[in-house]
């Protein structure tokens, strides 16, 4: 089929495939920016749009008056241009500055050169400056499409830029948010530290509040030895007032024999006394009176009393020779007075020891450790300190049973654990209205120290039991308890990674605190 067509065509008369050409007006329409020049570089013809946008006098004017060649870099000479008819030419309009892109075509018959090309722009806004619209371009040529593409590219670029800006802004927002989160975190950390500090202060306040409740008892504990010291000092002062003048002559006139007696009597007085019942004492005294009467000693009753005070209940016969002389009686009286002096000093020592013990307990208890670090602590010692402070509440009706097994020292926040013992002991005493049995068990169990505090009070009601560790829960009348005691106890034990539990029934309530050793 194809071959027959080809044979048919080959048999047809030969025609020039390019014998048809556009009429000049059509040519001008499809090349609105073309121009034609001769060997003298005179412009003979130009497209309508090129004429419109060029200065007057284009037709008939010289090429180099209107244009310069940007590419190729050759001289503006007809023959030179002729040789480069296949080159891409870029011309620049000297006045308006627009560019024409195209090629040169030599027409031998007329020896003229055609520039076939179009306005070249890379920015739409330039068109306006040159007074050109899209419709000025020939429809077939791609300049308009190129401009559309250019615009599409710009739009895409604008999109990209906008998206990049949004991304940057979102990133900044994210960073800002992160910073805010960091700040909030820091604030929370600070708040947490403040809370911990407040908690420490709260624990200390609770301790001091408990101390306030104890202070009357503690005052009594200090006041009693003070009273003993005072009366002893009065005794000593009274003796010195009465005897200071006569003492030198008394010792000066003391015979050797009396001197020995004096020393023996004081020695006897300073010895520990025999532990005798009142009945035994009375029996011995009556015997001594009889002996003294038989020896004709004046005022045998008084003398027997004096000798008893001097710890001489037995063997009074040895003193008879001394008592039969006036100097001897005086020696015994003086020895008696000196023995009361000795007793007074002993009383003062005992009283100061007792007061010092209370003061030491008070000092240990109220101590507040600001170091914030644990210390190796003897828990039994701390429990005893609390008991000392509660001495006056305990001594009238509470039997304390101590079951202390040997335990190692515990690394702990000593002040805080003291608060635990105080609180639990105080609660125990209140639960049994200061009448009953308080049992303290301390022992090591595995890797823990376990402290049981048991009271014989009425017990904790079942409905109250679940709430006892809640803050601000109290069964005490308003003003007597903050309701924070057991909450604080619980927090302190938890802080030590320990445990607290409670079991209760009427007559026996036991709190068990376990503190790990390491």
């Amino acid at each position, binding site marked *: 089929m194809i071959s027959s067509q080809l044979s048919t065509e080959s048999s047809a008369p030969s025609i020039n495939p390019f014998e048809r050409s556009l009429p000049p007006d059509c040519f001008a329409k499809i090349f609105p920016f073309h121009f034609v020049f001769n060997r003298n570089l005179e412009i003979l013809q130009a497209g309508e749009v090129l004429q419109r946008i060029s200065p007057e006098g284009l037709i008939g004017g010289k090429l180099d008056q209107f244009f310069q060649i940007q590419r190729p870099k050759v001289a503006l000479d007809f023959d030179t241009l002729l040789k480069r008819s296949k080159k891409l030419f870029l011309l620049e309009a000297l006045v308006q500055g627009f560019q024409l892109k195209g090629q040169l075509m030599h027409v031998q018959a007329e020896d003229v050169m055609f520039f076939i090309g179009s306005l070249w722009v890379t920015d*739409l*806004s330039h*068109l*306006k400056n040159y007074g050109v*619209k*899209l*419709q000025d371009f020939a*429809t077939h040529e791609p300049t*308009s*499409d190129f*401009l*559309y*593409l250019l*615009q*599409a590219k*710009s*739009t*895409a670029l*604008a*999109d990209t830029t*906008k*998206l990049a800006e*949004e991304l940057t802004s979102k990133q900044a927002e994210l960073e800002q948010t992160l910073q805010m989160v960091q700040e909030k975190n820091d604030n929370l950390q600070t708040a947490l530290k403040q809370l911990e500090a407040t908690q420490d202060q709260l624990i200390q306040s609770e301790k001091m509040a408990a101390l306030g409740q104890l202070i009357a008892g503690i005052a009594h504990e200090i006041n009693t030895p003070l009273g003993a010291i005072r009366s002893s000092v009065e005794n000593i002062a009274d003796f010195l007032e009465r005897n200071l003048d006569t003492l030198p002559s008394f010792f000066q006139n003391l015979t050797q024999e009396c001197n020995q007696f004096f020393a023996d009597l004081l020695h006897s007085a300073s010895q520990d006394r025999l532990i005798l019942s009142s009945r035994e004492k009375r029996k011995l005294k009556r015997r001594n009176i009889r002996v003294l009467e038989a020896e004709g000693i004046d005022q045998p009753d008084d003398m027997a009393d004096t000798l008893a005070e001097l710890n001489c209940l037995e063997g009074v016969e040895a003193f008879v020779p001394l008592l039969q002389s006036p100097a001897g009686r005086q020696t015994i009286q003086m020895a008696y007075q000196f023995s009361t002096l000795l007793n007074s000093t002993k009383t003062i020592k005992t009283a100061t020891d007792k007061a010092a013990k209370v003061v030491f307990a008070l000092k240990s208890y109220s101590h507040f450790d600001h170091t914030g670090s644990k210390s190796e602590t003897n828990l039994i010692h701390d429990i005893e300190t609390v008991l000392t402070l509660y001495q006056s509440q305990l001594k009238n009706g509470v039997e304390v049973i101590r079951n202390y097994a040997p335990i190692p020292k515990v690394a702990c926040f000593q002040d805080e654990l003291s608060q635990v013992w105080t609180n639990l002991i105080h609660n125990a005493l209140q639960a049994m209205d200061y009448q009953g049995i308080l049992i303290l068990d301390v022992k090591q169990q595995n890797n823990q120290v376990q402290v049981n505090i048991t009271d014989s009070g009425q017990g904790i009601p079942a409905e109250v039991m679940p709430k006892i560790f809640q803050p601000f829960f109290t069964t005490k009348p308003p003003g007597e308890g903050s309701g924070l005691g057991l909450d604080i106890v619980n927090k302190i034990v938890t802080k030590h990674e320990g445990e607290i539990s409670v079991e209760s029934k009427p007559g026996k309530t036991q709190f068990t605190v376990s503190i790990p050793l390491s």
Partner: protein
Amino acid sequence: MYGLVNKAIEEMVRSHFSDEIWEAIKQKAEVKTEAFVSMEGYPDEVTYRLVGAASEVLELSPAEVMHAFGKYWVQFTAQAGYGELMEMNGDDLPEFLENLDDLHARVGVMFPKLQPPSFDCDEEDEDELTLHYHSEREGLAPMVMGLVEGLGERFETEVDVNHTHSREEGADHDQFTVKYRVKCPFH
């Protein structure tokens, strides 16, 4: 439909209503895209869903939404970088409408997947023309009416657009008569 159209819908809602309403429309339309890319092709369905959701949220008919969008489209494309191209396409309304097809044809040859519509103008009278609208898509005739009205505003020309032939009613293509009168600058 290319992203520029969806962006224009977004911009119209944001500028005429609020960001919250746009988010509500997007959510209703189940469109997850954060930002439309202008020169990217999106399924037509996305645009239809957005218009449908806008119609529900704004309590307007889809035709009213498309009409408003057509008007806004002229303003939006001019602002979105196509202002100079539009200027190059004609100095007055009839010239612009005459060249409207070229504009879409060029877009079509460069981005064949976008399937832009085709327009044709018949001058009926000194102040009246017939606009023929051919589109692969359905339901966009109200947008064309809004578009012509938007162009009227751009060229300060009073326009009266009538939808004379509707494809939905069985016509071969949509046709509009456009009566126009340049506004007197002193009134």
